[in-house]
């Protein structure tokens, strides 16, 4: 009697954000196509990856809860959970798995979390900010929802390259910092360009009756950086690292407050 076997194709792609290639494997061609569309511009031809995730697709569950994100590490194994996904990642082995339904949002969250964990060890971070390159220099515009990140991105002149309107990717390099484009979008729903440039300034956004840039104290600068950093893990060592990174960033990159009208002339002050 012939042996019964089921051959399942293993489909794969590498998503490279911030110079870090992450391979994701799936057995579902439709989901692969969804990922290719979602991360267009961030798909790498790289054969090697720093992390490899197996994706296990679950059937949609109408009772899916909306539990908040939990990120915990024990014995070298990271567990990431939210109402819509479960994932594990073992940094030493550079492998992990994600269980989710066929949607782009869950894997997006997993990737953001994993990048924050990797960057935290390297002095970098993700930040709630828009970012853009102008004259070969990157500028970050930080603020909570409604502060104007999408608005200032929309007002950017043509000679500006948008890196993101929502979540900036910051890597430490030497004594400075580099901003990378990300596919993490806000209301603009437009992927950033997959390019990078040295960070020249961070602006904390405020909306007002006229456009102006005001200096702020080092303490306000550090607080502004800390308040806008993305970090999810309940891990004391990493919290210490992230805390130090925020102060170091604020001491090396000029941070000021940018008050602006929803008016393109604000860009005359930048760059």
């Amino acid at each position, binding site marked *: 009697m012939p042996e019964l076997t089921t051959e399942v194709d293993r489909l794969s792609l590498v998503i490279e954000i911030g110079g870090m290639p992450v391979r994701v494997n799936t057995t579902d061609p439709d989901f692969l196509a969804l990922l290719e569309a979602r991360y267009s511009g961030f798909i790498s031809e790289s054969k090697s990856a720093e992390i490899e995730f197996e994706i296990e697709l679950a059937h949609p569950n109408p009772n899916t809860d909306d539990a908040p994100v939990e990120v915990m590490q024990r014995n070298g194994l990271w567990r990431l959970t939210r109402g819509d996904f479960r994932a594990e990642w073992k940094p030493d082995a550079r492998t992990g798995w994600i269980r989710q339904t066929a949607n782009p949002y869950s894997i997006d969250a997993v990737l953001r979390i994993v990048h924050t964990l990797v960057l935290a060890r390297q002095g970098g971070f993700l930040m709630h900010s828009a970012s853009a390159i102008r004259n070969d220099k990157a500028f970050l515009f930080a603020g909570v929802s409604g502060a104007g990140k999408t608005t200032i991105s929309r007002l950017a002149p043509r000679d500006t390259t948008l890196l993101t309107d929502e979540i900036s990717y910051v890597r430490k390099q030497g004594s400075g910092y580099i901003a990378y484009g990300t596919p993490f979008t806000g209301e603009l729903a437009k992927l950033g360009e997959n390019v990078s440039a040295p960070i020249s300034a961070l602006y904390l956004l405020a909306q007002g009756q006229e456009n102006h840039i005001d200096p702020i*104290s*080092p303490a306000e600068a550090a*607080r502004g950086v*800390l308040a806008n950093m993305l970090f999810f893990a309940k891990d*004391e060592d990493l*919290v*210490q690292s*992230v805390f*130090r990174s925020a*102060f170091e960033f604020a001491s090396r990159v000029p941070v000021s407050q940018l008050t602006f009208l929803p008016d393109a002339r604000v860009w005359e002050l930048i760059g």
Partner: protein
Amino acid sequence: MSRLFLARNPRVAARVLDGEMMIMSGKDSTLFTLNKTATILWQSADGTTPLDEIVEKRICAEFEVGSDEALKDAETLARELAGHEILQISEQPIQQVAKIVETR
């Protein structure tokens, strides 16, 4: 009345900048900026100096307030900080088990 002893929670990150004490919880990354009185409590929280002595020597001297009122307010504040797991409080001296990382 029993005396209260305060110790810094070793599982937080802390730093003073421009006289402002910023503390980040190691538990959930929540950021706290302490006011002057809370900063004094944090800096004096060595586990062995009782709260009434901290109030007498540091807070009454700094703010020119009566010791009874200051002690009552300081105790409320200390309990609030303990609720956020920034400080540990006890009716016995507290042995610090780990060095606080106060970055500069």
